[in-house]
């Protein structure tokens, strides 16, 4: 009964649910980027590296300019820039996209930590970097429970939530989205109909970099207010798992991110309750494996995912 009571108390805490949304936000952004990239046929396991680069340059530019807009912009653009390398490798150079993705991850870890040592070795990152603003919603704020959950979330949390229907609409309800999916399923056919396979794929890979970069900015400028070596610590890989778990669909990926966010939030809320929190921390991962094996079933990637396209004669 004790266990039931503890869990009931924790489930009634607004902190648990607000935490779920907060932890899910960077995952959602990266996972949506992944969905877009892979729907166009480019395997992207480099969200981790793109987030890390976004996080570092958010802090670097934030410290230099004290301007939140410039800092966020820098992180988004740097995420896009490093994604471009992945694009060139996998689209023009027809490299193995997993190799290229791993290289980007390793490069991002190396570069950001290298520059961290170069700029902030002795002192750590400065404390006077700008923060991403919270959104205080006046009326909802005063509703009990609901207000405590969503009344005072960070702006990027809202951006991540809004990005889900927008991405869905973009991929499934616009002309360009149709072209993207065509390129990911059957590039030859799309090419025959006059769709530029290369252009679509570059667009999508770079978009994934922009999304992941913003996720990194959120981690650095809202969650941590600093940068430290390898600070994403696997968030990009969790986002990758969420993308596959969600079957390459924006809404599915978002739900998977919520599950991971819930697991992280639960782990934190269970600290000090006598449960071995190290084992509680493992629950979202176990749940994922069980869910994947039990009722999600076979995940089918876009047909041309990971296959470089060669322009015919």
């Amino acid at each position, binding site marked *: 009964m004790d266990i039931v009571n503890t869990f009931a108390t924790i489930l009634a805490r607004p902190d648990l649910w607000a935490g779920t949304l907060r932890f899910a936000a960077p995952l959602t952004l990266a996972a949506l980027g992944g969905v877009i990239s892979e729907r166009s046929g480019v395997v992207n396991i480099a969200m981790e590296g793109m987030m890390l680069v976004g996080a570092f340059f958010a802090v670097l530019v934030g410290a230099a300019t004290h301007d939140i807009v410039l800092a966020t912009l820098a992180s988004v653009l740097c995420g896009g820039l490093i994604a471009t390398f992945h694009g060139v490798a996998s689209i023009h150079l027809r490299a193995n996209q997993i190799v290229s993705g*791993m290289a980007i991850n390793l490069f991002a870890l190396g570069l950001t930590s290298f520059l961290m040592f170069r700029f902030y070795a002795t002192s750590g990152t400065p404390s006077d970097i700008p923060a991403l603003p919270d959104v205080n919603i006046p009326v909802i704020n005063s509703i009990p429970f609901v207000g405590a959950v969503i009344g005072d979330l960070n702006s990027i949390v809202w951006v991540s939530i809004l990005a889900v229907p927008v991405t869905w609409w973009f991929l499934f309800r616009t002309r360009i989205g149709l072209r993207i999916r065509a390129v990911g399923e059957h590039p030859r056919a799309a090419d025959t109909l006059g769709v530029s396979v290369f252009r679509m794929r570059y667009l999508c890979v770079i978009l994934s970099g922009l999304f992941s970069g913003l996720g990194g900015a959120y981690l650095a400028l809202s969650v941590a207010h600093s940068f430290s070596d390898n600070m994403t610590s696997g968030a990009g890989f969790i986002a990758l*798992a969420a993308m596959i778990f969600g079957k390459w669909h924006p809404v599915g990926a978002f739900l998977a991110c919520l599950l991971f966010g819930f697991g992280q939030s639960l782990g934190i809320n269970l600290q000090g309750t006598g449960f071995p929190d190290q084992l509680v*921390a493992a629950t979202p*991962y176990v749940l994922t*494996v069980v869910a*994947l094996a039990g009722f999600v*079933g076979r995940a089918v990637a876009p047909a041309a995912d990971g296959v470089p396209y060669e322009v015919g004669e």
Partner: protein
Amino acid sequence: MRMLAAGITPVLAVVLAIIVGGIVVLASGSNPITAYESMLVGAVGSPFDISETFISSIPLILAAYAVSFAFRSGLFNIGAEGQLYMGAIAATWVATTLSDWPGLPLIIVCIVAAMAAGGAWAGIAGWLKAKTGAHEVITTMMLSYVAIDISHWLLEAGPMTPANAFGTPESGPIPPQAAFPVILPSWILPNARLNASLFLTILAGLVFAWILWRTPLGYEIRAVGLNAKAAAYGGINVARRLVIAMVIAGAFAGLAGMVPVWVQMRLYDSFSPGYGYEAIAVALVGKNSAVGIFLAGLLYGAMIHGAVAMQANANISGFLVQILQALVLFFVGAEVLIRWFLRRGGFRALAEAAS
């Protein structure tokens, strides 16, 4: 010519990586020559450093065999890290529990435990893939996080926490008779730590190649990896081969986890600096061959060990190594680029052979 061609891409990739890495160092306001010189001296400048380079390389090589073996069956084992943790936990648990056993049987039981635990952990992912189609990239990665969390629990608040632990999360000591014998006796090279795990690693490489290229099982695993549908049509039980391939892969990773613990003679919390992840790069650079992986592992190990001296002596971040490793990987992946360079340089035949 074929041997030369097989090696040319990685070698040129290293050269290109050194050049681009040098530009990064230069751009950050340091001298690349100083950086590379101190890294090289740090990695192989003395017999002691060479021994340490091997110590850094061995877990990478073994874990890369784990990545590659699965890769040969068409599975992307991204979770060697977790299999490595399970191997380390099992070996440590056996060694500390049976601490009154004599040396040789104890070492053998520990090796078996490490390989069995790693194999079982990877086998779960293989079994799920075969039974339900659960994507191995997710399951191996999720199982990695679970394994690491289990090790945190065991060492911080669980049954492996020794009674006299003063807050440092670590296991009890590995009994000294269970240690791998050190290769170089102290009157030749004092304090050298390189031990017989080097021979185990060479043996592992031989076993890796032997299974894949000299046994029916290996043939079938490679057939599944090349075209699962054709293999099934040819009468191969694809599901069973996938599970076996993952179990064997995990056994390599389990051994990879035991080795660093047997250097420090204790299992520490977060003992792996990401061997399982870097092993993916080593496997890819080594082109999934036993010899290639061994050489790539030595290269990556040398860079890791050399970085320590470079950061201390030249005041350049040791993370330059990750940049170099990434660039090597990138250029190995982008073979088209290498072939273009070769063709430009007039090595047309080599360029064709390298493809």
